[in-house]
């Protein structure tokens, strides 16, 4: 399977479309107005992973009343997609439910440890600290909706807890009923308890007659009917409208059109990134037709992606915890097949590790939309076999050490100058 791609919770991602095998994947991620204004993280989370045979995805809605709901959403979303991507297609709903329930229970201790280790800053006002400590004791919670589309089996396996919605449409755009489905707000997954307020809901069905499926968070509220048919532009307009309402909530949507294909044009050309000497940065020539670039990064400890809008300078400055990162660049477009991954270039970051666990898995980006990938060992097929262009960065002066050393030299020189001036004064002026 290819890498798991995750949308970054610290930024907003406008409506975008990608082609994976025979499906067109459209997604959008917008934080609530409060979070946007305060520069906070979104509580929703989107992840996906696919190839020509299967597509796994998850949308999670972190419970803001719980402790850092964004953490549970991210933790669970990554786990669900990783699990579904490797899961043999289930034989029946009960087998699927039992396997999922076992996984939800198995992931709980790891999440509980993650949350317990999450620091609460000592400089916060006592009332806020008390509130956060109370929330931390109760754990982090998230609703979820995850699905596996198996093209070989021609079938869909979906599971959820909470009120995120899964909607299916036929080739005429008519919504198909899901009479057995129940969307219960009280149901969620908790880092403290695992599955909460009941067993997870599951759905197993053949994809015959299904042309499209949409998963979205409850932030779309009463306007969710607008999702029956949309364009990228109308989706962005709807998001803008919803964000202007007093009840503005995080918005996340992932839409899958089966048996789709990009315009019958060649894939985008592969970018040719070069290391910017003296900086942990890449630069490349613009690729004709590209609407954004995705920089795939891998280190020993973590992997992630950062998107760079094509309207901005085609450069990437690495801002990440200390380490050596293998970087590849890909060109993407809403209307054309993505390029292959570029040859690898190594960059070294000299920044100190971030102490905050919440930010452990996130890059510090400067770009509006950043994606993260997992499973660093699994390079995409298009990148395998390409020669690695290893930079000479290790021989260069570490970027973070240089300013300090320079300041030290300057200070010593200033002190010597001052001393000499005093001596000169006493010798010549008296």
């Amino acid at each position, binding site marked *: 399977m290819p890498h798991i791609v995750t949308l970054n919770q610290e930024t907003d991602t406008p409506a975008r479309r990608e082609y994976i095998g025979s499906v067109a994947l459209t997604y959008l991620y917008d934080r609530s*107005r*409060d*979070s946007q204004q*305060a520069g*906070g*993280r979104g*509580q929703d989370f989107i992840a996906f992973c696919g190839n020509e045979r299967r597509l796994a995805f998850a949308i999670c809605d972190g419970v*803001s*009343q719980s402790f*850092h*709901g*964004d953490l549970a959403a991210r933790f669970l979303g990554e786990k669900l997609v990783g699990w579904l991507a490797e899961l043999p297609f289930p034989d029946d709903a009960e087998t699927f439910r039992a396997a999922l329930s076992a996984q939800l229970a198995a992931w709980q201790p790891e999440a509980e440890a993650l949350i317990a280790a999450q620091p609460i*800053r000592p400089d*916060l*006002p*006592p*009332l*806020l600290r*008390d*509130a*956060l400590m*109370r*929330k931390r004791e109760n754990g982090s919670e998230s609703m979820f909706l995850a699905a596996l589309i198996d093209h070989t089996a021609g079938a869909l396996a979906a599971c959820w807890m909470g009120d995120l919605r899964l909607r299916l449409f036929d080739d005429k755009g008519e919504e198909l009923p899901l009479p057995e489905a129940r969307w219960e707000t009280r149901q969620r997954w908790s880092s403290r308890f695992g599955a909460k307020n009941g067993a997870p809901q599951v759905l197993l069905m053949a994809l015959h007659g299904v042309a499209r499926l949409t998963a979205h968070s409850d932030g779309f509220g009463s306007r969710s009917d607008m999702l029956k048919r949309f364009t990228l532009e109308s989706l962005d307009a709807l998001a803008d409208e919803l964000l202007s309402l*007093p*009840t*503005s*909530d995080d918005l996340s949507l992932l839409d899958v059109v089966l048996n789709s294909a990009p315009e019958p044009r060649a894939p985008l050309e592969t970018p040719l990134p070069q290391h910017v000497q003296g900086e942990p940065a890449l630069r490349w020539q613009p690729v004709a037709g590209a609407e954004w670039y995705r920089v795939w990064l891998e280190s020993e400890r973590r992997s992630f992606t950062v998107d760079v809008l094509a309207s901005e300078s085609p450069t990437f400055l690495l801002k990440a915890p200390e380490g050596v990162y293998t970087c590849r660049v890909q060109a993407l477009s809403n209307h054309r097949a993505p390029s292959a991954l570029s040859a690898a270039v190594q960059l070294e970051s000299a920044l100190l590790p971030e102490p905050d666990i*919440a930010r452990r898995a996130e890059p510090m980006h400067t770009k509006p939309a950043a994606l993260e990938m997992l499973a660093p060992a699994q390079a995409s097929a298009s990148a395998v076999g390409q020669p690695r262009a290893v930079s000479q960065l290790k021989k260069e002066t570490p970027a973070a050490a240089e300013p300090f050393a320079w300041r030290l030299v300057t200070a010593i020189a200033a002190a010597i100058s001052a001393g000499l001036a005093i001596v000169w004064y006493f010798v010549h002026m008296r």
Partner: protein
Amino acid sequence: MPYTAVATSTTPVLIIYLLDISGSMGQMLGDKRRIEIVSDALQEIATEMVARSTKGELVAPRYRLAIYAYESQVHDVLGGIRTIDQFVRDGIPEFSPRGGTNTAAAFLAAENLLAQELPYIQAHPAPLICHMTDGEYQGDDPTPIVQRIMQMGTQDGNVLVENIFISDKILKQPIEDVYSWQGVLSEADLANDYARTLLRMSSPIPESYRLEMQEFGYNLQAGAPMLFPAQTRELIRMAFTMSGATPVA
């Protein structure tokens, strides 16, 4: 449907606390003075409001608070209305019991504040007044003022009035288990006239509030009055929990 508007940072709910700090609040209830127990309960509900307003470390101003402490006179404790994020920075105020019990003056102050605020918060959740006392009023009868207040409101519904009566003489039968208590179900449950006066000054619990209270484990009956006999610390905590039970986004 009334009382379904959610408290958000752009449509925060206004909550006015009227706290009796008369001399009798210095009396002991268990091992603490009544006034200290009220401070503790206020701290607890403020913490809960902060928790309900917080995403990560960000406190959204979903609640606006005013606190009037009253004895013979009324004191504006916060110097006007404070949003919950401002309240977080200032912390919980301290109270010293003294003087008489001019309940009517306190409700009059609340009425004046509502008259100023309501034109600007029509799209917000209905405001709530949480009145806490431990004894019968002195001076004017507050009932007519409260009845006027209960006719004021926003598009979400009329102003809600909650009364917390710190006394062990309000109910004929003591409450055995706070979590299974269904509320004051009839006037016949009440043991004295002032309790009956407070009953008439209490709004019925909106269904949305009742459901929020269920989340905290309380099982109040639909339509029960917002009148809480506060015989114990647990009951005071429950009563203050009600004051923060406006649905939030």
